[in-house]
């Protein structure tokens, strides 16, 4: 609910607005978040904003909450010793397929392996988790000097489902809102579609200007300008008519295959980690 709470952070992939489980999980601090609307930390990266505004918000936030622990959003008091707020025990989350994939993020062979696992799970919560962690993953790769191709697979997977209507069930909601139930469903689906566009824009924004993939940089605002209001049918129609052809031109299957093979060769040729 609060936009600077853990519930709106990329590193808590289990919640977004009213969507998600009643408890969250932080892949940075590796704890279950039992009050994710009331906690935060300086690593917070907003899910709901595009790159420039997200980074401005992150800088303000880090200055206000310098202590690197999960803490009260209101008082900044550390919450690490309060099991009613954070809990390292993930057993209950692991009973949920999405929860299991999220809690194993960073402990499998690679983070991309975890993201691929989420991609294969049907439903909006799994997609939310993939997009949320994916945005955090790409952001960090780029901050460490990585190229846009660090998000190649995420870009491709998202591109392939960009025009699909998110599948949201009544159990996917963690709380009620002031909107009607019909509108709440629509806004939740719309927010997932916009999250897809944000991820594509994150990756496209890191590509050189002369690379076709950079066309994705403006997708979020282009979609919003074309649709005027948060309207699921309108944005999906715009995506099918305008964004999909742009993205097909930017990253056709053959180019994806070539880049994927090149990435694989780089990894195989890389010296072993010390």
């Amino acid at each position: 609910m609060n936009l600077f709470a853990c519930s709106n952070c990329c590193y808590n992939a289990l919640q977004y607005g009213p969507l998600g489980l009643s408890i969250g999980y932080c892949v940075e601090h590796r704890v279950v978040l039992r009050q994710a609307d009331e906690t935060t930390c300086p690593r917070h990266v907003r899910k709901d904003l595009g790159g420039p505004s997200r980074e401005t918000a992150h800088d303000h936030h880090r200055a206000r909450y310098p202590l690197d622990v999960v803490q009260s959003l209101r008082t900044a008091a550390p919450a690490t010793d309060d099991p009613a707020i954070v809990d390292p025990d993930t057993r209950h989350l692991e009973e949920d397929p999405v929860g299991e994939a999220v809690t194993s993020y960073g402990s499998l062979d690679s983070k991309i392996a975890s993201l691929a696992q989420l991609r294969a799970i049907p439903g909006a919560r799994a997609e939310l988790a993939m997009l949320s962690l994916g945005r955090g993953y790409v952001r960090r790769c780029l901050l460490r000097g990585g190229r846009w191709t660090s998000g190649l697979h995420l870009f491709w997977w998202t591109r392939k489902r960009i025009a699909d209507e998110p599948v949201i069930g009544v159990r996917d909601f963690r709380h009620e809102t002031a909107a009607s139930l019909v509108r709440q469903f629509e806004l939740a689906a719309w927010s997932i579609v916009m999250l897809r566009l944000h991820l594509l824009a994150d990756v496209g924004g890191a590509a050189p200007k002369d690379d076709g993939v950079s066309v994705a940089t403006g997708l979020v605002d282009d979609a919003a300008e074309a649709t005027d209001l948060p309207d699921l049918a309108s944005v999906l129609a715009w995506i099918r008519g305008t964004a999909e052809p742009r993205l097909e031109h930017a990253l056709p299957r053959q180019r994806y295959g070539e880049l994927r093979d090149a990435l694989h060769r780089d990894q195989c040729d890389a010296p072993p980690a010390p």
Partner: protein
Amino acid sequence: MGSKAWGIDDPLLRGDDKAAVCLPVPQAPASIVRHVLFLEGPGRETPYLSTTEDDDVAARFAGRSGAIWWTSVAKVQAQSLRYISKGELLEVLRGKGKGDAAWPRASEVQTARAYVELWGEHLIDFRRLQASSPSEVGDVVCALFLKGSP
């Protein structure tokens, strides 16, 4: 979930600190998008106070350590402050926004609009108090809000 339509005589609720409602800064930037999206973080200076028509939303913003406060459109108008209804917000939050909701990024206007819908948000505009001291602003806020359920 919107079980009963809010009416102009119904209370406007706010989840906030237990001790007091946070103070607006009448001289702060007037952008509605900046305000709704908290673009400068929690504690950013804003000439607006957000309220909601929904008690569940207010409870969520209050959290376990906060409290629900309430006021009404009549009380806002009795203080000669501007009341910006949810309907008015929805009217200006479209495209790249209109009036005080004008904003360079249409996507952020849309996101703000979605939050206004989900939160049942109404604003109180304190810009009329631009010449007032913080303590005078505090007095007005104290006169407006009561703690607890209406």
